[in-house]
């Protein structure tokens, strides 16, 4: 892949006029794939499900304390790319990942890297809230327990409380920690899942359409939460809502048919998209 165009023009962005997509048939990413303070960096990543080439030559850097939104039409590979970042694709038999992804300089697909430990560092929140069929307390305590983060019960209590607090759920559930997690409302369940994820104290949080099953109020709460969390974590969020991407993210990456078409600062993407496909998508001309 020939990324030099985009990479080299990174600093000179303001001065370069981008041509329309038809003049850019190789499908190179336009915009700026680099990040000042790169924490995660993906180089030439390809993902195949059997013969299906789901991610094609994606190169992208993601900074610390940054929220980046992945957008694009359904089936374009957003979830697939997201799941590469904590090797959740390992559990899919047919999936094969090539290329290089590093976390803080460390190759996460290296032979001697334990994906279990990686996933403790790169937490994930799914589209549908999936609390375990356990109590609210046990849901949050699950991660700290398996990773031995708490030396005793009071430390564990502490972690559970802080996590629920930071997920903005503590007030609603502090008197019912012994009730099953599934007894909460959808929005509360999703915040419980976020609490469960941050209880492990990850460095990166991946979110795959975390609000798509939620009403606007619950969505607003989670968006606030993302804002707050971004002070400490790198957050990568897949969303179908342009408004949401505009509200929570600093950068936006637009995927199309497995290719990363355009990456740029959020305000730029939404006001002045460089690529025709991006423009079509955000103006509602592509599904």
């Amino acid at each position, binding site marked *: 892949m020939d990324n030099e165009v985009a990479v080299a023009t990174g600093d000179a962005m303001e001065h370069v006029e981008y041509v329309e997509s038809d003049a850019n048939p190789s499908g190179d990413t336009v915009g700026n794939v680099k990040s000042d303070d790169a924490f995660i960096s993906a180089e030439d990543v390809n993902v195949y499900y059997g013969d299906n080439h789901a991610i094609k030559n994606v190169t992208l850097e993601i900074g610390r304390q940054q929220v980046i939104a992945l957008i694009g039409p359904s089936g374009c590979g957003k979830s697939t790319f997201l799941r590469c970042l*904590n090797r*959740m694709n390992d*559990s899919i*038999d047919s999936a094969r990942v090539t290329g290089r992804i590093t976390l803080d300089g460390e190759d996460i697909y290296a032979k001697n890297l334990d994906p*279990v*430990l*990686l*996933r*403790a*560092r790169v*937490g*994930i929140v*799914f589209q*549908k809230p*999936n*609390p*375990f*069929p*356990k109590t609210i307390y046990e849901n949050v305590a*699950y*991660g700290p327990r*398996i*990773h031995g983060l708490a030396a005793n019960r009071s430390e564990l209590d502490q972690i559970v409380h802080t996590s629920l607090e930071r997920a903005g759920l503590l007030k609603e559930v502090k008197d019912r920690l012994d009730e099953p997690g599934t007894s909460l409302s959808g929005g509360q369940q999703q915040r419980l*899942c976020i609490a*469960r*994820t941050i209880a*492990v104290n990850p460095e990166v949080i991946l979110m795959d359409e975390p609000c798509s099953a939620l009403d606007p109020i619950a969505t607003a709460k989670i968006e606030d939460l993302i804002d707050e969390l971004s002070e400490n974590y790198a957050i990568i969020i897949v969303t179908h809502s342009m408004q949401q991407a505009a509200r929570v993210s600093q950068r936006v990456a637009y995927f199309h048919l497995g290719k990363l078409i355009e990456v740029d600062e959020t305000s730029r993407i939404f006001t002045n998209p460089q690529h025709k496909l991006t423009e079509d998508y955000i103006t509602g001309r592509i599904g």
Partner: protein
Amino acid sequence: MPATTLSILLAAIAGAAFFLGKQRAFAVAGGPGNITKLHSLPGYHGYFAILCALLPSMLILVLWLVVEPRVLTALTIQSLPDAQRSMAPSELDLLVNNIRNLAAGDVVAGEVNAVLTNASQRIQELQETSRRLLAVTCIGIALLGATVAWRRISRAFRARNQVESVITGLLIAASSIAILTTLGIVMSVLFEAIRFFREVPLTDFLFGLEWSPQTAIRADQVGSSGSFGAVPLFTGTLLITAIAMFVAVPVGLMTAIFLAEYSSKRIRDVAKPLLEILAGIPTVVYGFFAALTVAPAIRNAGEAVGISVASESALAAGLVMGIMIIPLVSSLSDDAINAVPRAMRDGALGLGSTRSETMKRVILPAALPGIVGGILLAVSRAIGETMIVVMAAGLSANLTANPFEAVTTVTVQIVTLLVGDQEFDSAKTLAAFALGLILFVVTLGLNVVGLRVVRKYREQYD
């Protein structure tokens, strides 16, 4: 008229009714282009005609065949000479039987005399008349039905609704056959058991410690009155069931865990059908295996370490039964594990759990109700299993918890009580029904609870 001719004729009438009905429906509509004017499609009118032609005549046919023998017998008896008519009912029965056998050309007990031949000729004649009458009636009614149906065809006639309601009726009748049969079985077992409990008090049966059901079969025989304490049978059943579950639950569960979570798709594709085949082996084959291979092996092994083992032992039967039940446990557990949503698995993995942590802490607890339900079903299967224990567990009703001794089970005793020529009103044979009743109640209870647990659990995620 032979039965085949009658069937062919009826079928022909039905076919004709269908076509004529359909044609008339078309005609009433005013040609194929105007079918929408009809309430029901022409085909339904045809089917309605078939039903009108066949259903009443079939009903008559069945009733006739049920009633005919009784009427014929009564008529035959009436025609017998006075000497025979005044015989005792049981001898008269015998005579009638002989007459019937002779008429049908079967073997006749005793000599054939004039009375017998006359009567058998008479019954043959009667039969022939009856059949002729039947044929005429059936065909007449079929034609009548078809005509009525044909005349009812009109644009507004709701043939489809009529046909559908008849079909619904047939389906209900079919499904009630199974239910009614079950009900009948339960009732007959219940009544026989009640007869038994008139002779042997319920408490003696349920709490008595000695089982030796040898009663005098005929009134003139000397013999013990038998003792019907079923506790040794219950303990024997429990012992064997416990051994079986001890084998089947861990092995089955681990198989299920392996297949659901750890095995590659290739292994799963081979292993699952293999297990299903294992489940399809007739239990009598397991019985051979238990009696001829496992039991001697256990005895030899026991001798080698200085334990005396009976040649038919609870252990042998239990082990083999356990092996038999493994597929049941593993496939039900596998279902339960697979019913845990993928999201649960992903959630656990995404938090950095290893596979085994995911299994132990998330999937198994979530699948537990389903697994428990499956185990209850397996227990009920083990309790009701007969063939293996008949062949491998022995017949002696020992009250023991020692797996190396021979024990006997409820099912084995039912079999031995009813095998051979028995009088069906002695306490000995009636005891089998009492045991059957207990077995039925226990397994039914386990099945109900097990199925409920399994189903409740399924609903949780759907």
